[in-house]
Each structure stands twice: as C-alpha cells, then as structure tokens.
C-alpha cells in the first residue's frame, strides 16, 4: 500500500492545500491519508468569491436615504403584457420571465414594455402631486439634442422612407411587368385559339357537317347583349334557310368537299324524296288555291308597269 504507482492510473486528482513537493512532506501526507495511490495532479483551488450578504444589507441600511417619492421618482415593475405575443399565442409563462439577451428585438421590446409599465403607473401619481408631464406648445426651452441634430434625424428618417417606397414601387413595377407579360401571352393564346376554332367551324360548315351558323354570331352575341332578342330570332332563321338551301345546292365554291359523290350511302339515302313533289299530287292546284300569287308570274304589261313604277 505504501508504493506509489505513478503513471499507471490516470486522472486521480486531489487538491493539495499546501503545495509542498518535498518527498518527506508527500510521504507524510500519504501516511495521513490525504494522498491516494495513483497519479496526483495539482489543481488550483477554486476561487472563493466574496458575497457578504450581511455586509451588503448593513451597508444598504446605512446608505439609504428616506426621501419622499417625489424626490426619487423611481418605480419597480414588470413589463406590460406583450400584446403581440399574446395574439400569436407565444406568450411565455409569467414565471419564466427570462428575457433572452441574444434576441435583440425581444430584448429591446422587453425594455420598452418595462418603461411603458412605469409610465402608466407613474403618470397618475405625478398628477396627484401636481407635477406636469405634458409640455405646452408655447413652452420653448433648451432641449437635450439641438435643433440641428433633430433636423439630421428627420432627414435620415425621410430618406429611409423614400428609399423604401422606391424599392416597393420598383418591386411592384417588376411584378406588373411580369404580370403584364403573362396577360399578353394569354391574350395572344386566346386569340389563336379562337381563330383556330373559327376556322375549324367554318371548315365544318363548308363540308356540311353542321348547318348552324352559330360561330359567326358567337363573337357578336356578347357585346350586343340581350336587347335584340326577337330580331335575332328573325335574323337567325330568315336568310339562313334560303342561304342554306342555295349553299347546299351550289356550295361555297372552291374545292368540292366530296359530299356529292355517288356512293353507296348517298344512293341509298332517300331522305330528300318528297312524294308529293315527285308525283305532282296537290302541288299545282293546292298551292294556288291557298295563296294566289305565290308562284304565278304576272303578265308582260304588268311587269313593264311594275318596272317603270319601281
């Protein structure tokens, strides 16, 4: 037990009150039991910090001057509740009031609110004591900062504001331009689509697949509105029937659409057959009996007169 095995075991530190490194002293210390086998390191004793509570209290008692509050104007209070944090639901519990010194904004807001709480508490007290807090407009006195300084501050604030506004405007303009470009592209695409639709509708009509001329009116319907409903009906059916018939008979011109071929289907199609017309039954007499002048052509003299008259 008496052999010191230095270097075999690590980390056995022990504080030595007296830093005597003489062998004799070490042996004595070991015998007493202050040293243990193993490597012993010298560590500095922890600094003993003075915290003389009684002395502090005594000093405070001696030093304190019992002045009326009006002389001191001091208040101790917690900061006003943070409305913003409450609204966001991030209100810290009232017990954990540690303000984070690293978070600049939070810290400054904390100080601000503390000041606010003091002011809110102190103003009524001051009013009671008859001390004014509001400076009247015509009270001119020297201020802590000179007018020049205040001018500089004002200029800086204004310049900051204008810069911000400018940047906002520039941003908005950029957005608008982007938006405008988008809108332009959209309009062009829409127009192309419309043109395509129109052409296809026309082609379809040409080829006789549809017999409605709705696509012509499709553009005009929207601006005109619903004022000419009846006229629309007339215009829809009036020339359309005749036109339709003639177009059907003679076509649009140009390349034939291939709808008049004599194919098996068209040969077998008997939908255009009118028995009455074909066999002449009740065609000549019946028509003239109802409305006289439908097909009858007036004589030469009458025609000449009509011609001269019109």
């Amino acid at each position, binding site marked *: 037990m008496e052999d010191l095995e230095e270097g075999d075991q690590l980390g056995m530190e022990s504080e030595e009150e007296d830093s005597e490194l003489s062998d004799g002293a070490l042996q004595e210390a070991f015998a007493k039991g202050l040293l243990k086998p193993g490597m012993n390191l010298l560590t500095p004793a922890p600094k003993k910090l003075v915290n003389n*509570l009684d002395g*502090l209290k005594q000093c405070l008692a*001696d030093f304190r001057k019992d002045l009326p509050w009006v002389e001191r*104007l001091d208040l101790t209070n917690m900061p006003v509740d943070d409305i913003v944090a409450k609204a966001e639901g991030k209100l810290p519990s009232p017990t954990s009031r540690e303000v984070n010194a690293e978070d600049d904004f939070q810290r400054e807001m904390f100080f601000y609110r503390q000041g606010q709480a003091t002011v809110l508490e102190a103003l009524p007290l001051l009013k009671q004591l*008859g001390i004014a807090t509001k400076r009247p407009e*015509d009270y001119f006195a020297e201020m802590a900062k000179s007018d020049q300084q205040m001018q*500089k501050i004002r200029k800086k604030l204004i310049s900051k504001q204008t810069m911000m506004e400018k940047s906002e405007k520039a941003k908005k303009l950029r957005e608008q331009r982007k938006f405008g470009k988008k809108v332009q592209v959209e309009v062009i695409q829409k127009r192309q689509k419309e043109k395509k639709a129109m052409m296809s509708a026309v082609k379809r009509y040409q080829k006789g697949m549809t017999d409605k001329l709705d696509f012509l009116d499709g553009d005009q319907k929207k601006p005109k509105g619903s004022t000419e409903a009846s006229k629309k009906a007339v215009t829809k059916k009036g020339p359309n029937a005749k036109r339709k018939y003639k177009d059907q008979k003679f076509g649009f011109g140009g390349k034939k659409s291939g709808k008049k071929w004599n194919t098996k289907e068209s040969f077998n199609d008997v939908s255009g057959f009118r028995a009455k017309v074909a066999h002449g039954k009740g065609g000549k007499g019946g028509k003239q009996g109802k409305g006289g002048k439908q097909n009858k052509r007036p004589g030469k003299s009458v025609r000449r007169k009509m011609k001269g008259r019109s």
Partner: protein
Amino acid sequence: MSTLKRKRGGKGPGGKKAKKVKVTENGGPPSKPEQGQTHEISVPAPVSLGKWTNKERVLIFSSRGINFRTRHLMQDLRTMMPHAKADTKMDRKDKLFVINEVCEIKNCNKCLFFEAKKKQDLYMWIANSPHGPSAKFLVQNIHTLAELKMTGNCLKGSRPLLSFDPKFDKEPHYALLKELFTQTFSTPHYHPKSQPFVDHVYTFTIADNRIWFRNYQIIEEDASLVEIGPRFVLNLIKVFQGSFGGATLYENPQFTSPNMHRRQIRLATAARLREKQMVRELQKIKRTEAKEEVGKDITADVFVTPADEKPVQIETEPPERKVVKKNKHKAFKRQRMQRGR
C-alpha cells in the same frame, strides 16, 4: 452661469434661458409669478422657489486615454443630469482614493468615474463619495445621444422617471445598486437647472447577468415611448464598502475580465491551429513511412475449393475462328416483328 445668485423664496431665475417663456404648468395664459400671491387662479410655483432640499451633486469625469465614444457618453450624461459637474481628466498615476478628495473640493457627494484601459476597455466607478459604497462596472455596447437611430428628444435637465426590474429587489447586492442608481440618477426636485416637466424615463433591466440602461422619451399619455439615448450595458465586477476602496462586499462570479476573454479566444484559435497542424503532420508521416511488405496473403486460402486440379495448358497459337453459318429458314426481322415475336 452658476455664479448667478439665486434669491431665496420669490422669483426664480428669470433671464437664464433666453428662449424660455414663463408659462404656467397648466398651459394657461402666461401670468407673472410675482403677482402670483394676489391671483385667484392658483399659479403653480416656477421651478425653484428655494425649496431645493435634496442636495445631490454628481461628479462625472474620466481618466486619460478615453476614446471619442466615452467622451461623448460623458457629455451626454452631463446633459441629461443637471445636477452633474465636470472635472478635468485624472492622471493615471494617482491612486483612486484621490478621487474622494476631488469630490470634496467640488462639493459633490456622488461620483461617476470612467476609466479607460488599453484604449479598449472602459470601466465605470459609481460611488457615494465620503463613506458610502461604491461599485465598479465594465461598460459595453455604448451608443450616444448623437446616433441618428435615437430619434427622441427631451428637455435639457428635465427630471427622469426611473424604472427598475423586479430582479433588483431579489438580491442584496442588486438592492444596493438600485439605491445607488436612484440617488445618483434622479434629479432633485426644484433643482435650479431642472425643468418642471417629467418627460423621459430611464430603464434599468437585468438580463444575462448585466444591467442594461435605456433612456426613453414619453410622447403620449398612453405611454408611447421613443428612445433618446444614450444606452450602455454594465457588467458588475465588484461592490466595495467604501468609496473607491474598502472591503469587498460582493464579487460577480460570472465576470471575466476582458483580458481573460481575449486570451481565451486567442488560446482557442491557437489550439485549433495546432490541432490542424498535428493532423497534417501525422498524415505526412503515414504517407512517407516504410510500408511493410506482406509476403503471404492470408485471405488467399478462402477461395480454395476441393476440386481436381487441371493440368496447366499453355496455348501457343491463337484459337481457330468459329464458322458462322447463315440460317436461311429464319424469317426477316420485320416479319418476325409483325408476327409478334
């Protein structure tokens, strides 16, 4: 201006500030205070009616070697505190208790002494001059009145409200500091240089074991504030029983002197560099050291399988080419695809 004799009782100083117009505190029509006694409307007293009883005077000065920011801070404090007096810079070779004598000469009972060390660190002593306690702080994060971000303004010499954090009441050393601050920073009532309105508030808050000082202007009655400045952070070092000396009453355990702080940073960077260097050297050694030759591959036996050993054939001529015969009965590829192969 301080040599102007003030009359006790009756008129206050009339022509001191040329711009100042004598106005009653109610904002009513300006009436002469001499006729105050005969007026039926109660005219509140002008600033000083000789009722200045709280004779508190603060001496603000510094040692040599301060930089512009400290100088401006001192000037700002003197502006804000009408009960403050200035003095010339103290020589560094003088001991600190000389300051007590300076205070006595100037008839001041409080002292704010700024000490600059190494042209970098600023220490502030706040002391109650003849017998009272004193404290030493390290001052950081100084911003002066002249900074353009501090947009508020207040009357020169108006009395401040003092706002303290509740933490000041929890520990005895903070309580002592609170009392010191209160007596030092609060302007006495009816001080001749003070203004009658209370329009700004000092806040002392404890955060991160430091005392943060802010100065706000009260704009509206609903307590909207704007910062005036100056602002600084105090890091407590020690509290002494006497003025600039005496027994230590309290030592701040979290305080590390700026020298130690800088030293720690330097040591940290040095340690990092040394570690990098060591790693690099180790790598170099590894690269250049003689690598031992491994004669026998111990893993070679892993793939030994029990099988008959074939005689080793060494071909001296290249092998013959294989004859590829075309399959005529095979359909064309396209046809194959069509068939759906």
